[in-house]
């Protein structure tokens, strides 16, 4: 695996759209070619070379390419978007849309990420060492294709509306979450180690939400069924199982309706 290191030399005045910072775009390119890749700032068409010092070179394919970002990337959007393989490591916080529509590979952000990150993710591994904003792993505004696959792990807290329209994959939050979890979900699994504010699983058709801490207020569309023992992310515990959202449309499997499930640690 070959490594490309991008060091921020100039902070953008507005926000820099870094959709080209992915192993897929970098693959097969040398530092000077990478410096020529376009990056928008507002309506201005600029290049990555204007904002980053670029060292090293990419591997022949995305899978053989590692990208390391140094310096403050908190005004950089779209890092790692649509990546299919390889590795991206960001040593700071990032802005919106980081890791959106990821299909594979590994993306590590050592700081916080802003909202709309990991949108529509299909595969790969996305690790956020700080906190995440709203709409993590959700669908793009208006779309119905939220997180489909892969895994997102957040070491800190997350904002609201996470995993809206989730269809698959797994989100693990080690801290707390705000309102609206898995709204409209039709699959997937969300683990929250801390507490959740409220409105978990509204209009959920299918999928699982596992909460270790407390839920501020359970939605009225959920019904307690039984207690179950589960092993979640390496921890064995006893959980209360709730099914719902009872007011929503539910598909049938072998004649029995399929419900979304909330597991609340006892």
């Amino acid at each position: 695996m070959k490594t490309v290191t991008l060091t921020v030399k100039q902070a953008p005045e507005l926000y820099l759209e870094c959709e080209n910072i992915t192993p897929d775009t970098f693959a097969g390119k040398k530092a000077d070619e990478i410096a020529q890749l376009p990056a928008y700032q507002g309506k201005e068409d600029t290049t990555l070379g204007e904002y980053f010092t670029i060292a090293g070179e990419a591997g022949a394919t995305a899978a053989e390419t590692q990208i390391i970002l140094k310096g403050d990337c908190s005004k950089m959007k779209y890092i790692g978007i649509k990546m299919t393989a390889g590795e991206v490591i960001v040593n700071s916080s990032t802005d919106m849309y980081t890791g959106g529509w990821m299909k594979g590979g590994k993306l590590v952000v050592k700081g916080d990420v802003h909202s709309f990150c990991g949108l529509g993710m299909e595969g790969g591994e996305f690790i956020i060492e700080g906190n995440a904003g709203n709409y993590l792993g959700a669908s793009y505004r208006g779309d119905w294709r939220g997180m489909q696959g892969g895994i997102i792990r957040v070491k800190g807290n997350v904002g609201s509306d996470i995993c809206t329209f989730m269809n698959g994959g797994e989100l693990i939050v080690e801290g707390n979450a705000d309102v609206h979890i898995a709204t409209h979900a039709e699959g997937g699994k969300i683990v929250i180690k801390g507490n959740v504010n409220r409105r978990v699983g509204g209009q959920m058709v299918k999928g699982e939400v596992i909460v270790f801490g407390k839920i501020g207020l359970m939605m009225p569309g959920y019904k307690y069924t039984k207690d179950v023992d589960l092993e979640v992310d390496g921890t064995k515990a006893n959980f209360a199982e709730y099914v719902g959202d009872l007011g929503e449309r539910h598909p049938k499997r072998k004649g029995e309706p399929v419900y979304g499930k909330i597991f609340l640690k006892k």
Partner: protein
Amino acid sequence: MSEYIIRNGHVFDPVQGIKGDKKDIAVKDGKIVETSALSASAKQIDAKGKSIMAGAMEVHAHVAGPKVNLGRWYRPEDKLFDSHKTPGMTRIEGGKSIPTVFKTGYSYARMGYTFAMEAAMPPLYARHVHEEIHDTPIIDEAALPVFGNNWFMLEYLKNHEIENNAAYVAWTLNQTKGYGIKIVNPGGTEAWAWGLNCLTVNDPVPYFEITPAEIIKGLIETNEYLGLPHSIHIHGNNLGNPGNYNVTLDTLKLVEGYKAKNNFGRKQVMHATHVQFHAYGGDNWGNFESKAKEIMDYVNMEKSITMDTGNVTLDETTTMTADGPFEHHLGGLNHLKWANVDVELETAAGVVPYIYSPNITVCGIQWAIGLELALYAKDPMRCFITTDHPNAGPFTRYPRVIKWLMSKKARDAQIKAFKNSDKVVAATNIATMDREITLYELAAMTRAGPAASLGLGKDYGGLKPGMNADIAIYNINPDNMPSDPEEIEKAFSGVAYLFKDGKICVKDGTVVDNGNKRTFWVDVKVKPNKQVAHDVKEKFLKYYSVNEGNYPVPDSFAPHPYVIAVDATQ
């Protein structure tokens, strides 16, 4: 204005019966002229190895107005990743199935289109339609106000008051700057306000006690009474349901006994639109099958009908129609999202995103039906190519539809690519059809035919001296047709040149000029009618949310009009 002489190209013009012969085309002052009329300063365009046709005419698309904008509002995902500007003179082009007005204009022009008909204008929101039309660059446009569920019309036709209905239609065309009579699910959309629908031509509309058949016949009589350039333009009852082809045949048969009466050379009394959605056999989605042959056997025989196909392009798209009940039904089938608008006394609309997936058998069959309709058509001057944009697919896919029509090889490749190709083949006739549409037939289906059907055949749709200089030159050589069908799609995706009103607007697939876009509308003069004037006043006082004085579209909304005057006082 500039003069041009286009040399050495292969000309395809059904108006003059030119089938690919090499002929020079001369352009002067926005018109096609005899070559002898040019001065020595005429610029030469070398079209060697290229095909020349008139500018193409879109007969049915949803490209402007509240319904399209509702789609844009609630489908931001349709514009995802389209926010960057490309180099050149064009503005940002956003959207795939519901493009911005700019993308709409540019895309049509790049494919060689110079005219588009907005297929459903709610009269109350006509101002919005005209604002968007005005902002769409290059192409000429017109809009058809929807009448098929209008309260005035329902009341007049219930008592068979053709003269009153005609006065009302004339008034509406004038108020809305509309082009002709559009009918969507006649009676059914109004019935839906009562929680019902009209699924056959004989289902009565609640309260109004009139049947779709009576509405359609009454509107044919109204149209011919007025002598409008276009005939009635109908989206029939029971769209999109298995087994609906019988309802379609019942609808088409309503033309029997009527004759076109107009001064525009139009021969048909009915234009049946997006027939693909109306040519379904079977009685459920399991035994769903093509009835394209049954429909086309009738259309081929009945010369008083023109039609367009409504080809499914196998894309993710946004369906939108004034057929409110159908959209509600569709939303229940695909569970994505549904939006609805009610337009007071006039009409309604629904919007639902839809994915025509090649992995779904029904979508494959729909794809086949659309192509079969065009391939069964004996008279290409009466069968036009559309995708009912964006309902069966975005209009930007026309080059792909043309590829499928012109190449059996391309069709076979698509059939093979279907997940359940054996089921698609079993339910359709597409695999047995060898016909390949020729460039000459294509010129009829996309130029001369639509122009004649819209009553614009005198000035548009051909390359005869005296006609408007809307000319498309394609990189396709009839003496050396490409063996790879992809080359056909490529050639029709970007014209070598597009002349609009004698001005080069697109060159090598790139927009170079915004042209002089115009809004076509029909101004009909009728005898003063006190009854209708009274009814309009009363309805506005009683029911409308706007004042009568705020209803009409002011001239400033269509600052570049092309007004077609019709005198119906005789």
